[in-house]
């Protein structure tokens, strides 16, 4: 199977600070890949490189078979991105935010566009009563859901999530995990998710990529838990993580 995202020999250097040092990573179709790593290990830089928002020092990235070039349009019709802060356009209502990508990439009738956007809001777990609100009138959790609805607007093949549960209370975070699983099962999505949230990692991901020393250690949850890398040991060794591992694994994936 062709990987959906293929990262080969990625190097990102800022002065003396080598963030990625020949990193290789493949994201396979229909999987949910969790990306973890300590603060400053380059998770955000990696995502920005994949999206063409950051010029890598060297290396090659392809998404859905298309080579990513800095600031050139990538596979814009086929990817969806949930930015960390939501990145909703503040001058537009919730409904308009979700409709914008559709309007941009399709000439479907207004009515249909409207209905599809509403559908995406519902799928993201929102009530349609928020449709006419402006982003500033919403809570952080709701903004993330709207942003997710927008990311789903174009029926993407791959979804990138940047710390989707950061800043949510545990109940809302668990809800969000459920939502991600639901979408993954129902929409034939490939998902790449940056997270610091161990619960969320065990609750949603098929494989985990850990960024250590500029490279990625990739494996299933079990493989990663067995790995003898020091950082991995201490990250997953903490009691919180252990508990998550014993309870949180998706029953259907275990």
């Amino acid at each position, binding site marked *: 199977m062709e990987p959906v995202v293929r990262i080969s020999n990625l190097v990102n250097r800022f002065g003396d600070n080598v963030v990625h040092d020949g990193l290789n990573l493949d994201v396979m179709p229909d999987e949910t890949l969790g990306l973890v790593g300590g603060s400053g290990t380059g998770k955000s830089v990696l995502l920005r490189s994949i*999206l063409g928002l950051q010029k890598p020092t060297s290396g090659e990235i392809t998404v859905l078979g298309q080579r990513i070039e800095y600031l050139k349009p990538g596979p*814009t019709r086929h990817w969806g991105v949930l930015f960390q802060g939501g990145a909703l356009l503040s*001058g537009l209502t919730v409904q308009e935010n979700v409709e914008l990508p559709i309007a941009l990439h399709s000439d479907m009738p207004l009515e249909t566009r409207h209905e599809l956007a509403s559908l995406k809001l519902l799928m993201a777990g929102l009530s349609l*009563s928020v449709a006419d609100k402006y982003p500033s009138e919403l809570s952080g959790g709701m903004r993330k859901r709207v942003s997710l609805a927008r990311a789903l607007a174009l029926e993407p093949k791959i979804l990138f999530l940047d710390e989707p549960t950061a800043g949510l209370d545990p109940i809302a975070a668990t809800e969000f995990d459920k939502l991600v699983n639901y979408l993954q099962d129902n*929409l034939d999505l490939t998902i790449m998710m940056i997270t610091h949230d161990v619960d969320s990692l065990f609750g949603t991901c098929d494989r985990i990529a850990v960024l250590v020393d500029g490279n990625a250690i990739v494996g299933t949850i079990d493989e990663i838990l067995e790995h003898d890398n020091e950082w991995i040991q201490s990250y997953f060794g903490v009691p919180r993580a252990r508990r998550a591992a014993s309870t949180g694994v998706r029953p259907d994936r275990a």
Partner: protein
Amino acid sequence: MENAYLQVEKHHDSLKVGLRNDWVFDNVSDLEEATASVVSSDGLPVIFQCGGLQDIDIAGAWVLYDRSQQLAELGIKSDFEGFKAEHFKFLRNIIDMAAIREFDEDLDDEPPPRPLHGSIERVGQNTLSAFEDIGFIARSILDGTRRPLTLILGETIKQVYETGVRAIPIVMIMSFLIGIVLAYQASAQLEQFGAKIFVVDLASISILREMGVLLAAVMVAGRSGSAFAAALGTMKLNEEIDALRVLGLNPNQILVVPRILGLVIALPMLTLFADVAGILGGALIAIGSLDIPTVQFVERVKYASDMNDLMVGLTKAPFFAFLIAVTGTLRGMQVEHSAEQLGRLTTTAVVQSIFLIIVADAYFTIIFTRLGI
């Protein structure tokens, strides 16, 4: 009857509609058209045979679902047959959502909006429209405009209005006052020599060549240079710029170019208004306080200054505008991490653009002097 997406067969007890090819987002318009043609004239039930589908997604499944709902409203039963499991889940998803939606709508059977509510909303809209930076372009896209050129043109016109038309009153007031000050200062000196008519020369020439355009430019730097930096910087911080790129829009094209173009158009226009107001200020003192007759004042203005003086001022305007707009947008785009940096760069944008204007003005003066204009 058949087309690329479906094939209709009439049986004695039903209308069989065989679906085929890709029922996906990209084909939605065609799918809508195709399904609209599925009518069962004699009330026979419609059976959608879904085994031949190549691919389906939520958008395609919605078209199918929507048609079956429309048929139901006409009293015609419809059914789905032969769905592959991996295709059916999309339809099931929509049916689930429709149920949630119904439940949702039952919950908040809101009373119709009260008038007060409406007016608050309008105030909110106005406040927002003052700040919204992508709103105008985004609305054009939502209205169906997708050609970049049309979008850029629309936004440019909006910028001319925001940075130019709306600045006319303040620029004119300032220039009028400076006209008064110039004439007054000059008259204090020149009256001693009994050369008070030269007050007109001094005021009109300095306003047309220097003060008009400088005042307008400094005002615009403070008013719009800072607004550009703050607007783009805020969008940068909110990752809105990144979100636009990921959607396939080029922020430089739709946000930066219209601002530069808009200002290059707006500033010469503002300069003209500043010139007129400045000379009126001078006239107030000359006619009102120095007792120069109006006719003589007008004659003297014509005699002392000519088209050249006006053009010298106007020629500088687009260059100044370019400096202000580029500095403002560039500093805005440089914002990366924090609100504190946003504030700092906004200030920097104003300070630097005013500095650049003065430097450029000095160069222009030298060049014009050399050329003897």
